[in-house]
């Protein structure tokens, strides 16, 4: 408790009593502010709800199978959205009512009182007994006696009539439109609360409806239509062009359990490798394998694979198709079609081509090595083997099994010592091979020729300096002067922009 005043409790009680009216007003204004916030939130929620209802109805009319919100549900939702936010906001406000000190601060602020009352409140409860604190408490209480009936600075409620009216109008308009539009025509069994259920017996809309839709299963009806990936479509079209019918299927053959539309081809591709026909009853595994097949096809095939395959003969197309049918566990066969794996078998001169490419690249590199000063940073020759195997030159080259190996690279300080033979590994240098530097002791001897004569040194012209600076031509001098005046004027007046002299310069010219 405070030592500021001898009877602090009594003084505090008096202060609270004097501030009670102010405290109530501030509290009411705080609650009003919270209520306004809650009402605004409710209006926003109602507008969103009406918009969602309207969208659902419109979508239901267009698609025909989206559930509709009935009038009762809508009314209940409206009541909930309209009541809960304001109530929650008011409850929050009740939990955060301004304190007595806050009321004192607001009274000080409204009356331009130099915080006397709030300071007195603080010093009454603070642990201080200085004479100035006691004087400040007395001063504040005297002020409070005069100002207790004054209106404090109330908490301003944030309420925009314009914005909230717009929200209300939006709610009303959207509700009216939703009522005019009405619920969509109901198919099949309607829901209990006005939801229109999914109609029975209606086929799943899909892009391809033809002979493949001879047998349909309910499992596939709930699955939205899945479009084939563009690459797979491309492949399929190529296969269709090549064979005149879907790959791996006889004309008129119906596969049980295969989905209608574009997904059937992928399912077939992924399942044929596994030797299964895609069990229709196992819908989950069918979906998974379908997704897997889609991903595999999309990743493995480069974009140009499709056209390549489409140009191949029907037999090759079948072969490629069989190669790509291994995802379901088809033994040692590749899981997906890989053009590179095909090329590996069909291109026997691949190594020659690679060697030629390397030679070309090496030539390019040697041209960028600054004439051999800079060593090749991309030496592709494999490191020479350090093993001393003896096979009399019969082993494979560079394998360390006695075959011919390139000269070993010299490393360390030995290579820096002059006179030590250093194998030349720098590419692009003329006459590569071992080099040797020899030192020769030679006595200095006079060279034949005329002795140098001294002559008179003439004053040479110095480079330009302030003394020898050439005068600026008069038009340019005026231009420079104008620029400097403008610069200093701008600096003195505080203007940030220095006028450009471009226009003046062009005029001068």
């Amino acid at each position, binding site marked *: 408790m405070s030592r500021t005043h001898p009877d602090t409790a009594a003084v505090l009680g008096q202060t609270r009593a004097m501030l009670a009216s102010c405290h109530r007003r501030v509290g009411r204004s705080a609650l009003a502010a919270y209520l306004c916030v809650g009402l605004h939130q409710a209006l926003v929620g109602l507008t969103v709800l009406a918009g969602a209802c309207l969208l659902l109805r419109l979508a239901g009319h267009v698609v025909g199978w989206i559930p509709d919100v009935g009038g009762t549900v809508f009314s209940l939702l409206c009541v909930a959205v309209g009541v809960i936010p304001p109530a929650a906001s008011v409850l929050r406000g009740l939990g955060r009512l301004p304190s007595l000190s806050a009321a004192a601060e607001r009274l000080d602020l409204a009356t331009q009182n*130099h*915080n006397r009352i*709030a300071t007195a409140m603080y010093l009454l409860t603070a642990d*201080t007994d200085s004479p100035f*604190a*006691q*004087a400040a408490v*007395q001063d504040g209480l005297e002020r409070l006696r005069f100002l207790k009936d004054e209106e404090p600075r109330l908490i301003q409620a944030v309420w925009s009539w314009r914005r909230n009216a717009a929200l209300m109008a939006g709610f009303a308009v959207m509700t009216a439109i939703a009522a005019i539009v009405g619920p969509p025509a109901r198919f099949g069994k309607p829901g209990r609360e006005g939801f229109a259920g999914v109609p029975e017996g209606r086929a799943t809309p899909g892009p391809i409806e033809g002979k493949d839709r001879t047998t349909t299963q309910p499992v596939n009806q709930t699955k939205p239509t899945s479009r084939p990936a563009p690459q797979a479509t491309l492949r399929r079209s190529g296969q269709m062009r090549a064979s005149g019918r879907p790959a791996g299927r006889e004309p008129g053959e119906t596969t049980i359990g295969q989905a209608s539309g574009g997904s059937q081809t992928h399912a077939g591709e992924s399942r044929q490798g596994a030797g299964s026909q895609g069990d229709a009853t196992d819908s989950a595994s069918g979906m998974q394998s379908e997704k897997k097949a889609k991903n595999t096809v999309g990743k493995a095939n480069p974009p140009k694979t499709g056209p390549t395959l489409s140009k191949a003969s029907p037999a090759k197309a079948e072969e490629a198709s069989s190669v790509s049918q291994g995802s379901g566990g088809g033994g040692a066969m590749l899981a997906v079609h890989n053009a590179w794996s095909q090329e590996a078998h069909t291109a026997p001169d691949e190594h020659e081509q690679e060697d030629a490419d390397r030679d070309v690249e090496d030539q390019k590199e040697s041209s960028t090595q600054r004439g051999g000063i800079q060593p090749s940073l991309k030496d592709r020759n494999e490191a020479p083997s350090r093993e001393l195997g003896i096979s009399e030159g019969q082993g494979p080259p560079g394998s360390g099994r006695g075959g011919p190996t390139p000269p070993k690279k010299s490393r360390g300080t030995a290579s820096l010592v002059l006179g030590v033979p250093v194998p030349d590994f720098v590419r692009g240098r003329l006459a590569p091979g071992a080099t040797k530097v020899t030192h020769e002791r030679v006595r200095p001897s006079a060279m034949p020729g005329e002795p140098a004569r001294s002559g008179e040194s003439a004053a040479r012209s110095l480079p330009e300096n302030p003394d020898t600076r050439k005068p600026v031509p008069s038009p340019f001098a005026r231009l420079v002067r104008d620029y400097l005046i403008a610069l200093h004027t701008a600096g003195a007046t505080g203007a940030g922009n220095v006028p450009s002299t471009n226009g003046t310069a062009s005029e001068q010219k």
Partner: protein
Amino acid sequence: VRIKNVKQTTESSAAISDAQVQAERFREVFTRLKREIHKVFVGHDELVTNVLSVLLSDGHVLLEGVPGLGKTLLVRTLSQTLDLTFSRIQFTPDLMPSDIVGTMVLHEKDGGGHELRFQEGPIVANFILADEINRATPKTQSALLEAMQERTVSVSRRTIRLPEPFIVLATQNPIEQDGTYPLPEAQLDRFMVKLLVGYPQEGEYHDILQRTTETALPSVETVSNGEEVLAMRKIVRSVAVSEQVRRYAIRLMMATQPGSPHAPRAVQRSVALGSSPRGAQGLLLMGKVRALIGGRFAVSCQDLRDVAKPVLRHRIIFNFEGQSERINVDDLLDGVLESVGELSE
């Protein structure tokens, strides 16, 4: 208990009346000082109030203004009214630290022989007028650092305690910046306020001409002394501060610091360095003097707002964006004062 209560009430009444007497005495001396200064120094009432406030808050003043506005006159007159020692140091580029703090000088003894004696520099005085402080090199400017903060001067192994009250009043010229050395931040921060001296009003020119160009020149009387100034400093520190006002001072200071949650957008964008805690100290001390002048016993938020610009303006360093946009620091502080509310909740 009743007797105890009565005793406490009596003590309390005595303490309150004592505080009222002290505050009344403070106001009286302050008013007399201002009146005497205004005998010579015409106009600039707010400037004089601020200089006296700094003197009584135990701080230092940086005066900035063009030549001829009476900065030196103000300082000299203040020292005369208080009967305190006064030193004027003209800062030049070749001024050395030893010229300020003093040095060892070779003296001839009476009986023959020589000895080294310490010769005090001009800084050993109550009032130091550091004229055109930005003309000296940073090395020399830094000679004032210890004196301003610690009230001592160290020369070789000797530490000299400066006389109390001690106050440095430095002046600098906002123009003719060529060949000057801007004060480093550490030095600037030690000045409690930076006061701008502007041109007088038209009516004030009449008084200036009348007082300075006629035969009878105004004379200043001594109205106080060093002891009284020290006593007034104690009174200033006794003024109460509430939690709300202290929080307001802290938020004001933090609002000048980029990165602080209280800083407005302009500060975040264009300020590189904000106020240090010395800024908040200066705000409260200067606010306490304002409260006493206003006849109150506790500082208010309005007191802090009144002194915010002098206390904070030299503690704000602009970044490149702020400098390139030529933002006025006082305009920026107006925005800061607007953005910081004084309500606790």
